[in-house]
């Protein structure tokens, strides 16, 4: 019973052979097929270019083959995607979906012990809308009211499954920082610290000074324990300082909401002073002014394509920012920060062809592999490479076009969305979706301005 291995080539080459070809509309089996082959597609890999008439083979939920030909067993389920495009799942590194109204613990400018998972509502409709737009992973972040906000949740968008099943396994921890107008407005309007950018950064420095002392106390205690000192007395455990100390220890990916070029420089200087790295600046509308410097620090950006002007610190935002920063060597991701935009990040990537002349391969990387790097999950997803998770989208046409629609979305090799299905098009969801809270629309974003 050894499975015969077939070489799967474009349809023309294997016409008449063997495999039962599943009609696309009928491929609604929610069980994960051991082997799934999507053939005859334009395959945008995000890591090694685009393959015309290519195939993608998923084996037990992982990518087992990508190329003009793949070696899949005879029993594989085959989807003929002639005329269609295949990409890795879209990844949004900046979302506040499914957090209800619990995005900002705006009662203190330093709240690093807030765990966004405690607010995560896995039945929020925003997750479904994103899934229908081809989004397979999201970084659910604390808002930007606080200089040091809370710790993010990384999800796989397996809409319909339980909360636990939607968590991205073993994803690194991320923490949200903010800067600029939002913290100073939120606290300044209450006549509290901070009400200026000086205040913003003072609050941050003080937090890290406190964390240094706390970390020393605990390191010293742990040293004593390691040396067998049974009389060592544990210091007081403080959740807030625990989290800050972990930042100093480099255990958290630091994600900073920041618009202005001078603030990128200040943030980098503070990070250097306290010995941690900044993973990414989010929004980062003025990165085009200092891209070379920030690229040297190894910090990425997660930016809007063409949003600007909502507030003064967004006034110098230009739609060429992403491509200009990329040309300066910055790793660039696009993100939604909105329950609306998350539904068409593929189109947002398409705008990068218009604004600055990105190649289509560069553009697709901005919504797949680069956001995966920002979230620290690029070894598992974000591109069509052997061994990675089977997070794959089939599009009716080039996903960078305005006319593109996500037709099928697979996560870990399992079908979660199929636009040809009646009803919602979901494969796992039944019951009642919850309304979207914060960030439900642009107006809310504009009014609150602290996401």
């Amino acid at each position, binding site marked *: 019973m050894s499975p015969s291995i077939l070489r799967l080539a474009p349809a023309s080459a294997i016409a008449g052979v063997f495999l039962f070809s599943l009609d696309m509309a009928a491929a609604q089996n929610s069980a994960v097929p051991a082997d799934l082959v999507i053939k005859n597609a334009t395959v945008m890999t995000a890591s090694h270019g685009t393959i015309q008439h290519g195939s993608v083979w998923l084996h037990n939920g992982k990518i087992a083959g990508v190329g003009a030909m793949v070696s899949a067993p005879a029993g594989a389920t085959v989807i003929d995607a002639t005329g269609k495009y295949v990409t890795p799942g879209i990844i949004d590194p900046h979302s506040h979906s499914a957090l209800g109204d619990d995005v900002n613990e705006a009662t203190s400018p330093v709240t690093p012990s807030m765990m966004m998972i405690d607010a995560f509502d896995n039945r929020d409709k925003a997750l479904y809308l994103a899934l229908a737009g081809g989004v397979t992973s999201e970084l659910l972040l604390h808002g930007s009211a606080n200089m040091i906000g809370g710790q993010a949740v990384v999800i796989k968008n397996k809409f319909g499954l339980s909360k636990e099943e939607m968590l991205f396994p073993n994803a690194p921890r991320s923490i949200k920082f903010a800067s600029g107008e939002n913290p100073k407005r939120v606290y300044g309007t209450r006549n509290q610290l901070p009400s200026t950018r000086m205040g913003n950064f003072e609050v941050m420095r003080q937090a890290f000074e406190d964390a240094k002392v706390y970390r020393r106390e605990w390191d010293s205690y742990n040293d004593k324990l390691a040396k067998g000192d049974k009389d060592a007395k544990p210091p007081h455990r403080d959740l807030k300082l625990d989290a800050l100390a972990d930042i100093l220890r480099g255990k958290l990916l630091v994600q900073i909401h920041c618009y202005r070029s001078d603030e990128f420089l200040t943030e980098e200087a503070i990070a250097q002073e306290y010995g941690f790295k900044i993973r990414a600046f989010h929004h980062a509308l003025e990165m085009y002014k200092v891209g070379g410097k920030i690229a040297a620090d190894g910090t990425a950006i997660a930016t809007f394509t063409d949003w600007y002007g909502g507030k003064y610190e967004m006034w110098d935002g230009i739609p060429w920012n992403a491509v200009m920063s990329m040309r300066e060597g910055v790793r660039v991701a696009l993100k939604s920060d909105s329950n609306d935009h998350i539904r068409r990040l593929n*189109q947002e990537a*398409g705008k990068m062809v218009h604004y600055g002349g990105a190649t289509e391969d560069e553009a697709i990387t901005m919504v797949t592999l680069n956001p995966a790097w920002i979230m620290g999950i690029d070894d598992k997803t974000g591109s069509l490479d052997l061994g990675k998770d089977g997070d794959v989208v089939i599009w009716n046409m*080039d996903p960078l076009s305005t006319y593109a629609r996500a037709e099928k979305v697979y996560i870990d090799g399992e079908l979660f969305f199929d636009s040809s299905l009646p009803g919602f098009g979901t494969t796992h969801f039944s019951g009642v979706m919850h309304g*979207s809270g914060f960030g439900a629309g642009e107006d809310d974003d504009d009014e609150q301005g602290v996401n």
Partner: protein
Amino acid sequence: MLRILFVGRFAALRTPVLATSLLVAGSSVLLAQARMVDTTPAAGTIAITGGKLLTITRGVIENGVVLIEGGKIAAVGTAASVKVPKGATVVDAKGMTVYPGLFDAETRLGLSEIGSDRTTNDTIETSEEIFPQMHVYDAFHAESEHIPITRYNGITNAIVAPAESDTIPGQDSLIQLAGRDRDSMLMVKDVALAMNFGEAPKRGARGEAAGPAGGRYPSTRMGEISQMRQALLDAQEYMARRADTSKKPAGEEGAAVPAGGRGGAGGSNFNLRNEALIPYLKGEKPVVLGAYDGHDVETAMAFAQEFHLKVVLSHLTRANDILDKVASYHVPVIVGPIYDLPGPNERYDAVYSVPGELAKRGVKVILASYNVSNSRNLPYSAGFAVAYGLPYDEAMKSITLNPAEVFGVADKLGSLDVGKIANVVIADGDPLDVRTSVKQVYINGVAIPMETRQTKLRDEYWPKK
């Protein structure tokens, strides 16, 4: 289908033949003033040749010629049928797409500069709910930086309307997106009356109208309708009395001004609010009636019919349940924003498909951005509607000819036809695709410098390496 021709073929079309050669053609003076552009037509003829013309009224013309003279379109046709006069400035648009300037049927352009900064916002007067005597042209800031940024993507005309948190917030203006000064940019000062019904205008509700807890009148839909009905009845009575008064000797009426609005000083009969409503009560101009939910559309339409208003419906993003009924009204519909989120029980594409579903039912569909800084994305809204069922030709009309017709300027705007204002766009591909770049915009036949505050920042910081 036109759009099929474009799919996946952009790289081949992307030839930078155009913009530089155009700017040489007599606009070096204009480069210094990219924000305010003198659109007084120059003498001579401009001939745009070799492009694919999307005429809107007469289909697609491959290898077409557009002649511009005196700020107007002088000829449109194939290379074989249109003779380029000697001495014309020839613009080679080979490989390019040429189409009429796009028309955004609702924006706040010129009313808001920086969203969060109240001092730069004049979007709505919320101290009362019924303010037909508010004219957006009194606030319209022609020098807004958003205007060049919007026209950079091929939008040449727009309706400027007040925000939505009053039932009757004021009258809209129609603008050209270039001109030497405000007056030259205002095409029609009071082009329509804005009306809103439903959640947004409630007092004590969310948004700009939010008041102290508990709100004030009207805090419900009943309140909104009752207040509007009273206002229109007052205006009708005013209109009747005025007509009556005009037959009698002056002074006989005294101070017997009907209620509603603030009366004139010294017992004057003249009442700004009632005066403002007259052309709309007479059905001389359209009211743009904004409502999102199906049941709100029904209520608002019933009210409008009661007063025989000439209606253009607006929004309808949660009106899927009454689309047949909407078609039976036989009124045009501005749909959107198409990016509105669907309702709780609706499929992900419930809003995306509304333009297509309405068009299928014979409704004249218009798309609008309802925005300021995102108005430049108007063509992509139309493209998105195509992805979900709106025929391509209808999508192009929805942002050109249809709004021109509805706002009474189809003799001047909306298509590549002889005699119309030469608002013409040249782009390197399908106007509705996000990957396409506009290469040149003409307004009044004047080549507009393709320069904005944003391109200046781009050029200042463009990577050297």
